[in-house]
């Protein structure tokens, strides 16, 4: 099928003359417009690359924070501070009623720290180890589950949880 508008050869000379006859602006107008444009600085543009970079960095930071248990650690640390300062439970010292409140606080701190570690790594168990023959020298230990199980199996006096 013949499409005459696709064959501009019959108008090629006319087209050339239309282009050659194209009206030209006065040089004054060109310099005036160019000067006006150059005098107006291009506005700051939010580069898409910058936005993408910011998004990637933010995501990376959040992922890294989540991987190291940042949120639970922060919560546990805040809880430990609250316990130590008596903010969360101001009556805890009175619970013993026999002057052992300070000792109880220390154990609570140890427990809080153990919890923070446990929360962060999810693989630790806190036990109270009482060496055979020297039960009075109890020690709070934070062990792997296998280590804790081994202790509990071989030392009948060891108990789960921190020492009192």
């Amino acid at each position, binding site marked *: 099928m013949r499409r005459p508008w696709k064959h501009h050869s019959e108008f090629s000379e006319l087209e050339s003359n239309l282009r050659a006859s194209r009206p030209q602006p006065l040089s004054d107008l060109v310099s005036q417009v*160019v000067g*006006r444009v150059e005098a107006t600085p291009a506005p700051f543009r939010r580069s898409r690359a910058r936005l993408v970079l910011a998004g990637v960095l933010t995501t990376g930071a959040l992922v890294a924070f989540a991987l190291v248990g940042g949120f639970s650690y922060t919560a546990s640390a805040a809880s430990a501070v609250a316990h130590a300062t008596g903010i969360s439970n101001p009556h805890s010292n009175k619970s013993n009623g026999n002057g052992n409140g300070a000792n109880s606080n220390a154990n609570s701190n140890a427990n809080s720290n153990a919890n923070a570690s446990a929360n962060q790594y999810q693989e630790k168990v806190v036990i109270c180890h009482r060496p055979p023959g020297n039960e009075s020298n109890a020690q709070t230990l934070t062990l792997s589950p296998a280590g804790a199980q081994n202790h509990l199996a071989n030392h009948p006096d060891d108990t789960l949880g921190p020492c009192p």
Partner: protein
Amino acid sequence: MRDPLADTAPLVGRVYAYVAYRLGDGPDADDITSEVFERALRYRESYDPRKGDPAGWLIGIARRCIAGAALGSRPLDPSIHDVREEPDPAAPAVERLTVRAAVATLEERDRELIALRYGADLTARQIADALEMRTNAVEVALHRALGRLRDLLGEAELESPQSPPWTRKAAL
């Protein structure tokens, strides 16, 4: 994001050529061209390169400026197409004057197409985008506009014995 006014000088030429083909050379074309770039500066940030190149964007502004000034639909006086510069010394001024005068006598729609294609130097596809037409329809319309322009130039040749060479075919 790309600055649409990074290379202004050639754009001024294309916008002016489009406006002058529509309105004729002179103060009106100067004013509209200046207005186009004022608006372009104002709306610089709204330019989206995905929608077309800076020339197409500026021509869109120019079309709105002309429409806003209600200048585009008025009949043109062919005599206002004076030759103010000599961009191509090889082409005689009288020939350019004849072509521009013939364009000025075309109907508004044909003049618009000629101005977009040969003034602003837009492609058929860009013209189709600007006029919300199909590219094929633009090519057909341009072909017909050129035919009518050639006829006009042929008539001019019959009236004047020293006719430009591109009208020879129509005169035969």
